[in-house]
């Protein structure tokens, strides 16, 4: 309920919410709806980082849980599980998505790239190297999502996808600092490492950093 900026509920409001909860009989979790059914499992293959894996999964398994819990690719992180933080960002056929809000069964046949597939400690992707060089993290929890997102974001700029910060929709996109920040707004960093993250991405993209527009 505390989606990104959707509801900034203050302490007073929480009390109000609590009061409403006690004034009204609690709504039972099992409301009229679908009948409870037994878990359904399904056989599928997932192409992750160039390797095809055969899996048997409960249909409910998110792409994120398939990666982390079934393929032991724990680089992708679970921050919120509701599309609100970007920690789970991976690339699917080159496009960045939130892997927590997608089902694994919907990705048979797709090419999935996670942070592990972008590069390795010995052979880092340019974006990974730029994050190291610019100290683009503190605790590191949001970092794999930031890096995958940044790589996807640069392809979007290259493909001339506009953003909310784009002034002229009919001109070619340029990665200015306001553009970069708007385009990366789907990745939240609790440590607030934003300025170094922006510098790392700008460096990897070959555009001037901080405040200046290209």
């Amino acid at each position: 309920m505390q989606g990104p900026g959707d509801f900034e509920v203050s302490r007073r409001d929480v009390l109000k919410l609590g009061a409403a909860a006690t004034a009204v009989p609690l709504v039972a979790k099992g409301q009229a709806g679908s009948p409870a059914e037994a878990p359904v499992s399904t056989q599928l293959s997932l192409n992750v980082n160039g390797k095809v894996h055969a899996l048997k999964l409960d249909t409910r398994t998110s792409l994120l849980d398939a990666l982390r819990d079934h393929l032991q690719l724990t680089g992708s992180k679970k921050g919120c599980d509701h599309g609100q933080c970007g920690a789970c960002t991976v690339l699917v056929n080159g496009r960045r998505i939130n892997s927590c809000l997608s089902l694994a069964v919907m990705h048979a046949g797709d090419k999935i790239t996670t942070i592990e597939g972008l590069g390795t400690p010995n052979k880092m992707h340019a974006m990974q190297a730029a994050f190291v060089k610019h100290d683009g993290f503190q605790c590191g929890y949001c970092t794999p999502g930031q890096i995958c997102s940044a790589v996807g974001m640069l392809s979007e700029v290259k493909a001339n996808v506009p953003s909310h910060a784009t002034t002229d929709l009919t001109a070619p996109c340029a990665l200015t600092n306001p553009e970069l920040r708007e385009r990366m707004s789907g990745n939240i960093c609790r440590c607030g490492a934003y300025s170094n993250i922006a510098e790392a991405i700008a460096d990897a993209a070959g555009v001037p950093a901080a405040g200046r527009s290209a």
Partner: protein
Amino acid sequence: MRPFSYEKAATPAAAASAAAKNPHAKFIAGGTNLLDLMKLEIEKPAHLIDVNGLALDKVEATPEGGLRIGALVRNTDLAAHDKVRKDYPLLSRALLAGASGQLRNKATTAGNLLQRTRCPYFYDTNQACNKRAPGTGCGALAGFSRQLAVIGTSNTCIATHPSDMAIAMRALDAVVDTVQPDGAQRHVAIADFHTLPGDKPQVENVLKPGELITSVTLPKPVGGAQVYHKVRDRASYAFALVSVGMIVQKDGTGRLAVGGVAPKPWRVEAADAELPRGAKAVAAKLFAGAKPTHDNEFKIALTERVIEASLADLRRA
């Protein structure tokens, strides 16, 4: 999340008839709203029909000079489409003001139209909510209603429709194209597509059981200067408090639809007609009969100011 079975639909008509056969089935497109709600057990489908394989992902010119947008066109691709940027910039702007880059890469035209409210009481299954659990009451009416609607509401529900895209489509007079389980097609003006809560807030649109959206059609471009102005609690990645989608012609006439204030994209013809007379006159017509709460009455004054700011933007453009 409740267990569910899963199938991939082969054709739009097959998807619709499969959905009609199973009252507990739901279509899934991008999944960015449905899965969010399924995790919270607010949505509890026992069967999912994946429509992603259907060939509904194209943006095509219509013989009338308009644009037919496939139900599965991703929000990113629609916002980036050359024709949309050039001829319907309001739609690009509205899409780009919504969600995040990652979410727009998955979110589809149809899914965006059908996304459900972000009312905090709807999201909290411990709270009373007539929309989620009909007949239990409305937590928001008695509680914290800053984000909720000021007009078009009823005494059962005051939730807003959260879509930015739909505001632009309302101002552009889009038409929602569907296929029904028997294969028949329907074309519903967006003005009539979303419904007001009345005494059935759980019903949000005119779709019948199993009916599948196949596309959204825009009439030929209306020209004019176009702006989408969204005001929110932070600069990005947040839903609207108030948003205004506006088109103004050289002679000062125009049209507008407003988001964040009503259970559906809010447009009032009498308000359009007041555009040459300025924001105050427009807002008076838009909000005739409004029933704000103490917490959200600020939205009426805010909308008037956003209209004024939008008019100023357009004068500068």
